[in-house]
């Protein structure tokens, strides 16, 4: 079988599996978040944390809960890392430095999982499994909760109530993420991913010297890393490491895990707003972008011009032979179009245009299908913007799902789309303009004043794009473990996660108060392919226009050379 055919078949297998699973899972999620019943274990949890799950919260209260819970998470993770030196099961690793501990805490709470450390060389069992893996679950559940709150904003009327954050959080964990993670982990173990509490093994190498290999609860962390679109690897090599991702099958399954919840949430959305076709329009929009990016990625990675690369069957540099070009390209496109950031190949080694696709995928706001929850709410914000422009063009005050997009709504949506470009462009520009931050760029193959050219620029741009969009993948080639990068990327991750949530919840509150406008022949039909097409166009043009100069000086200059 030719590698290209293998790529196409993998793509088809993914589409088939998602088509099969998204309906039952989406319906199940809708039932979970609409149910009025509490499971016994949930009641215990509510009693422990002192929350009343039946109280309906308006948006400010919902937001306060989200922020308070996340702040507690940041503090806990920070202290855990700072205290690692005195924790058991730590392989003797010392405490993490303040700026790196801040960065890591921010990263895992913000569902980013940017790692300026090497897992196997700095984090022990307690921090990995008791801190980081736990946050993988929590941050994912927070993301879904906020998305569900926005969906309720569309679905409800004449009330400002968006549900109860604590109930949404606990249900997301107890009824969705944990059961799915258990099943997923078993599949991964069956594929050969390790799951133990072994220490460091030293293995002698053929050319002398010793290689250290850690054991650990890898499968359990791996599954939520993908399922919760977190991306923080147990090992530094992430999903390229054979203990995390041993073969082609586990690779495909991991891609599936990344996509399954964001895709199913579109069905949940359709269910909860009372029109599954609206959900399919959103899914269609996401699907078109994801398929387009995947296809382009496969094309650019297979058709690299270099003679050595052609001999290898494509751009194999930085890729694992067990996944090949196709398995790596698909993983790479998927991880950047979701807020996952797990990697099974070096994105820095992608072709110029391939690296550009990775960047652009994140710049779109990671909405195709995006992170768990964040993908849906990001896409709905873009839909609000597209509806506003298109709605004017049909001669009515724009409305989406029966809710008018007026001054207040457009204000929140406009603020939302300002956040990440400001963070990405601002921090990247500062990093290049200041004296020392450019020294972190390891690439020296260019000919600019700093000697690193377009590729070096891409490395910095990628770091902040990944951080502000809560992706977490790295382009590599940038030493990010400096005070400057740890601090700025940490800020970018926190602001890039929680500022948009403020606007999403404010928008949700504003929508929930409205009385729905009945549908007539004069209503813009947002469940139609025409609208989905318009939405794709609006997303690409608005993002493209924002980042075109930056992309031109990075991946485009490199890819078109």
């Amino acid at each position: 079988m030719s590698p290209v055919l293998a790529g196409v078949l993998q793509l088809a297998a993914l589409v088939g599996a998602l088509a099969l699973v998204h309906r039952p899972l989406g319906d199940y999620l809708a039932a979970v978040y609409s149910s009025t019943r509490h499971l016994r274990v949930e009641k215990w949890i509510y009693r422990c944390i002192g929350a009343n799950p039946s109280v309906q919260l308006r948006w400010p209260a919902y937001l306060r809960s989200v922020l308070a819970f996340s702040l507690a998470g940041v503090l806990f993770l920070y202290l855990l890392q700072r205290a690692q030196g005195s924790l058991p099961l730590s392989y003797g690793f010392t405490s993490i430095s303040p700026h790196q501990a801040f960065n890591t805490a921010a990263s895992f709470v913000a569902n980013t999982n940017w790692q300026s450390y090497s897992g196997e060389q700095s984090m022990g069992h307690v921090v990995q499994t008791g801190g980081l893996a736990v946050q993988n679950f929590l941050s994912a559940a927070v993301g879904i909760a906020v998305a569900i709150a926005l969906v309720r904003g569309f679905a409800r009327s004449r009330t400002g109530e968006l549900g109860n954050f604590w109930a949404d959080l606990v249900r997301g964990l107890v009824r969705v993420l944990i059961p799915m993670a258990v099943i997923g982990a078993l599949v991964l173990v069956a594929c050969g991913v390790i799951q133990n509490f072994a220490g460091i093994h030293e293995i002698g190498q053929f050319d002398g010297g010793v290689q250290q290999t850690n054991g650990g609860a890898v499968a359990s962390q791996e599954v939520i890393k993908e399922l919760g679109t977190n991306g923080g690897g147990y090992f530094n090599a992430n999903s390229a490491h054979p203990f995390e991702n041993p073969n082609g099958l586990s690779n495909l399954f991991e891609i599936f895990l990344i996509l399954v919840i964001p895709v199913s949430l579109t069905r949940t959305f359709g269910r909860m707003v009372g029109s599954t076709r609206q959900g399919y329009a959103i899914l269609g929009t996401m699907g078109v972008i994801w398929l387009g990016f995947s296809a382009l990625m496969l094309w650019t990675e297979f058709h690299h011009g270099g003679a050595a690369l052609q001999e290898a069957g494509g751009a194999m540099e930085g890729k694992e032979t067990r996944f090949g070009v196709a398995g790596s390209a698909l993983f790479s496109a998927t991880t950047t179009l979701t807020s996952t950031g797990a990697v099974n190949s070096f994105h820095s080694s992608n072709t110029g245009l391939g690296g550009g696709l990775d960047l652009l995928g994140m710049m779109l706001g990671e909405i195709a299908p995006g992170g768990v929850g964040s993908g849906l709410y990001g896409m709905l914000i873009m839909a609000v913007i597209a509806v506003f422009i298109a709605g004017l063009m049909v001669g009515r005050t724009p409305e989406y799902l029966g809710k008018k997009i007026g001054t207040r709504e457009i204000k929140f949506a406009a603020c939302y789309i300002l956040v990440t470009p400001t963070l990405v462009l601002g921090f990247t520009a500062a990093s290049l303009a200041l004296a020392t931050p450019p020294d972190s760029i390891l690439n020296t193959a260019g000919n600019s004043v700093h000697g690193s050219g377009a590729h070096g620029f891409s490395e910095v741009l990628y770091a902040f794009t990944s951080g502000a969009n809560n992706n977490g993948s790295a382009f590599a080639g940038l030493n990010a473990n400096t005070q400057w990068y740890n601090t700025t990327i940490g800020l970018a991750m926190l602001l890039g996660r929680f500022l948009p949530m403020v606007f999403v919840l404010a928008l949700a509150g504003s929508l929930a108060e409205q009385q729905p406008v009945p549908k007539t022949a004069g209503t813009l039909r947002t469940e139609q392919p025409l609208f989905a097409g318009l939405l794709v166009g609006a997303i690409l043009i608005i993002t493209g226009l924002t980042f075109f100069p930056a992309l031109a000086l990075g991946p485009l200059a490199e890819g078109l050379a």
Partner: protein
Amino acid sequence: MSRTPTTTDLSEEAMPTATTTRPAPGGPAAPGEHAEPGRVAGGLFDAGQLLRSLPEALRKLDPRTQVKAPVMFVVEIGSILTTVLAITDPGDWFGWAIAGWLWLTVLFANLAEAVAEGRGKAQADTLRKAKTDTVARRLATTDPDAAEERVPGTELRVGDLVVCEAGDIIPGDGDVTWGVASVDESAITGESAPVIRESGGDRSAVTGGTKVLSDRVVIKITTKPGETFIDRMINLVEGAARQKTPNEIALNILLASLTIVFLLAVVTLQPFATYAGARQDMIVLAALLVCLIPTTIGALLSAIGIAGMDRLVQRNVLAMSGRAVEAAGDVSTLLLDKTGTITLGDRQAARFVPVDGVRETELADAAQLSSLADETPEGRSIVVLAKERYGLRARHEGELGHAAFVPFTAQTRMSGVDLIGDDGAVRRVRKGAAAAITGWVVERGGSVSPDAREKVDGISAAGGTPLLVAVDDVDGPRVLGVVYLKDVVKEGMRERFDELRRMGIKTVMITGDNPLTAKAIADEAGVDDFLAEATPEDKMALIKREQAGGQLVAMTGDGTNDAPALAQADVGVAMNTGTSAAKEAGNMVDLDSNPTKLIEIVEIGKQLLITRGALTTFSIANDVAKYFAIIPAMFAGVAGYEGLDTLNIMRLASSQSAILSAVIFNALIIIALVPLSLRGVRYRPMSADQMLRRNLAVYGLGGLVAPFVGIKLIDLLISLIPGIG
């Protein structure tokens, strides 16, 4: 026309309805404009207007004024910056060229607004002429013949009583409290035919600035000087009272955020470029910024809003707020009065239905005879039908020998004639409401046959109005047959309603008729729903019910009892012939008092929104081409970035010509789109899907492609200039 009760008032219309059917006049149109009847269209636009508006456009360059249009304010800052830079390097023609074109960009935007305002000013001047200083004849007491004192019109207070006689200009808005007069309202409506104003009822309102042509009336002043109808009208058309509408504010927010995004993209580009070893000239960055921010829509936004109001004024509709115009575009339920809007004002005889044993001509003859003394439109239509169908000429009193006519009255609800033959025998012929005639026949010792009753009921069931015709002669009193009176639905209404349905607007017919009649007319006219035997309370309840379901409701009204409903409706159009209470309550006034105009108002509201959306889409889509022009121009010459030359798909001549072409295109497109923004995007009623498809194709794809062509052409031209290519 007056609401004289007629013989046909078996089912009396409970509500006063506007029944004006006179043609829409041209109105106080600005010079060089033609208000087209029927469909939404704007005035024509001529280049001379641009020149005349130039001084005003220059005045708007004042930063304190300019800051109100944030996007253009950014361009102005860019212009100042590039001018300063050009001055520091006076030998560089490129800097001067960019600075010059940036100034032109701002100027073009101001010009668009100034032209739009200028059109309103011309109308305001016409109105001002009507508002000459008047001297009021104030009465000391409520007695119409009390002593008068002469005071300036500006000193009148609310509640003052003034007297106006033939030739007087009415000094202020008010209600006639005594007398009847004919009034020339052409100063406001443009309609030269005088109108009757009388005390009491729904035609008591008079407007300051109009002229009494005959008789003498006492008027109670209801508005303070300076707040009269004509003052408000002047403010409205001048744009002085113009406030940004909710949609416009929302769009401004979106444009502001896009401006911030592009500002960010350009400001951060300098460190990126410096890192790449290609530090950029500030002039080039300013040019890039101006090209990227949504200048096209930013420049035309306020002109579009002013022009939208203007289009209404051209149709003789005054919107009291821009919000109302916008709401008109959103209307999903139209309440239309049957009489005058859907049907012609009057019922007309359609058929003669004789009872068994009577010939049709005999019935027609009797019906005609009995209607000769009926001056109501219904009575006249019977005479007309008899002539057209049976060749029966109308006879005059003299021709009939000894004839005593019984004229129609509201009390008897019948009319007729007593013919005294040469032998002295009296033949009495009567025609009228079924109940009245039945009473008359029975009173005279006759009876109404079951056959006649059946025919009466049949006509009622079919939605018509039956009139009975009876005679009492040598053969005794008996019914000859039934005249079938029908509401005549105006031509083209069904098509109009079909259009509205395709636009997603539900039409509800309001009538005082009984449900059967109402249903028949509703079916014939093709409205979606009807409200029969409607009282003002029913109407109010219907509006509230629709609004509770999320619908936006528009209606017209003229009577004082319409006022609460007019105030409750989202769009309430008061007829100018109506009472001041109605005009106060509504948020629009139709000077022509033509209730059908509600449909046009909805279309104008929609067109306003569509124009904004289309130009926004166009403006954003334009940016793609500008990037393809400017980014290669900035970096393709830098070592290590030669690959970016691939992006120069337009193959523009040089870096400088590429950037200049983009800036020139950006400025010229504003001027090119001024006519469109004043006229509004072409609007035809169609479904939202079709409309979106069409506008996306024209303004989305068009906006994507047009600048590629435009920039290339400009580049071809300027590369011919020596020293540039």
